[in-house]
């Protein structure tokens, strides 16, 4: 019964990973018909490629802003929306709604909102702020790409956190109140440790997602201005499907793969330090 998924996995995940590693040692290019084995040339080129270095830096910057902002805001909203008041389901739905909208539609609309003469700067102007050209003046393009992504996917993490918060037994708060703990101490000593497995899961998924950001970059900034918002996944796309330098793109893809796997293993390793209980 598990056969179809296993077969799908073998042909669409396992086989491609093996063959992307193999292709990374070739000069495969469907336009020139080239597919010679060139050893580690692609990797030598990658180390010397200043663009790739810049792109790797951008990818890290992107992930380092996105992951904490996304997770902190998602957790904050989850805590707020876990309280009892009228309308909380409506607010949950509002924060979740961008998740169901396609990234393409979401990005197209934001591209208009962020234009120099767009609504965001208009409303900023009303309150006396002279807004920057969000998609052109560094460092705002990177911030814009990050924030558009944060608003898009935050709802999913919020729901994960809400589910975890609802699992924290009320008695634990009760007994800590007898001991005189305040709200913040309770949050730090009870809530956070209790939901730490979910924090780990959300962190792993958010980081993996951060390395796959693509449509936002393509549609918002096209990787620019200059290279300032070109991230690794977008650079792979350019090399593979616009220049058709599939050999080099494969080497880049292998790096992305190793990147994501190393980060996941690292998080998994440190889980024993801060994940309070195992699920």
């Amino acid at each position, binding site marked *: 019964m598990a056969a179809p998924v296993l077969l799908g996995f073998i*042909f669409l995940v396992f086989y491609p990973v093996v063959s992307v590693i193999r292709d990374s040692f070739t000069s495969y290019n469907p336009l020139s018909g080239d597919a010679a084995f060139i050893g580690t040339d692609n990797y030598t080129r990658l180390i010397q490629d200043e663009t790739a270095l810049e792109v790797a830096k951008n990818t890290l910057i992107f992930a380092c802003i996105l992951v904490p902002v996304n997770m902190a805001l998602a957790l904050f909203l989850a805590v707020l929306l876990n309280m009892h008041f009228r309308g909380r389901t409506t607010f949950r739905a509002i924060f979740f709604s961008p998740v169901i909208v396609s990234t393409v539609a979401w990005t197209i*609309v934001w591209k208009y909102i962020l234009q120099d003469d767009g609504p965001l700067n208009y409303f900023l102007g009303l309150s006396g702020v002279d807004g920057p050209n969000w998609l052109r003046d560094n460092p705002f393009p990177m911030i814009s790409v990050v924030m558009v992504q944060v608003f898009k996917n935050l709802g999913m993490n919020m729901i994960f956190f809400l589910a975890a918060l609802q699992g924290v037994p009320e008695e634990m708060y009760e007994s800590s109140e007898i001991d005189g703990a305040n709200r913040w101490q309770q949050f730090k000593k009870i809530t956070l440790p209790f939901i730490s497995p979910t924090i780990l899961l959300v962190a792993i998924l958010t980081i993996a997602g951060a390395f796959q950001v693509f449509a936002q970059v393509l549609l918002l900034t096209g990787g620019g201005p200059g290279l300032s918002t070109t991230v690794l996944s977008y650079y792979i796309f350019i090399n593979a499907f616009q220049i058709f330098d599939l050999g080099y793109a494969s080497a880049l*893809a292998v790096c992305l793969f190793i990147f994501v796997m190393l980060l996941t293993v690292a998080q998994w390793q440190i889980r024993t330090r801060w994940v309070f209980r195992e699920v």
Partner: protein
Amino acid sequence: MRSKVNKRYTRRNSKLTGWRLFGIYALLLVIAVPFLFPTWWMFTASLKPIEEVFSFPASLIPNDFQISNYAEVFRLQPFLRQYWNSMSIAIVVTIISVTISTMGGYAFARISFKWRSKMFIILLSALLMPAEVTLIPIFRLMVKSGLSDSFFPIILIPAFGAHAVVGLFLMRQFFLDFPAELEEAAEIDGLSRWRVFTKIALPLSGPALASLAIISFLYSWNLFLEPLVFLTEPNKYTLPVVLPQFTDTYGAPIFNVQLAATSLSVIPVMIVFVMAQRHFIRGITMTGIKS
């Protein structure tokens, strides 16, 4: 002492009132702006004449309603056809991936077979695999077999690839939490594994199947990278591929028409979401809760 504790404890459970409530509403409303405004602005700007989209002062409600933007969508692109492409692909993907992930999830939850847990860990690695990594070899394979400019890869990849593993993961969790006694009783009565699955487990997993179906449909409906890479003819485009292409002959976007097309792609999904949002979020919470 005891009474004071009880008082605070009840306050945690009871509804917030007064200034605290007001403060929370104000805070939430401010945070809600970037989540709500884009949809509002998309829809209203799609009804404006092109000069008004970036006019000063910006209008929250169109001064001039120009419904013809929507007609223009269908004139510039075979939009009905593209809509149907997205819809039919998403339906096929949903049927396939719900079927196979439910079967797979059940197998991993209930049937013990060799290397089950090792296989499960390996499968999970698919959840983290960036699409860009696997796409190059799949592209190569599809070009070789002449299937590249067809719906085949656009259905195959979401239905059987990493997304099916997500589904398997969710359904396994669901069946693990599902009381085994019913099934055991049926097995004692001599029902085969397959019959137990179809006659007992399946009919009781309605809500989980529904949320899995929604997730799969949206995943396919919103898929961008794969259709962008594989599809080259406008007649075969799906919605996410065509939306960025509402441009004039110089490649500059025709704002109002592009936003009309975007509205057409977003609004049906939004309506379904607004009607079913309670079930929707509960379903996702339920399937994700023990993750």
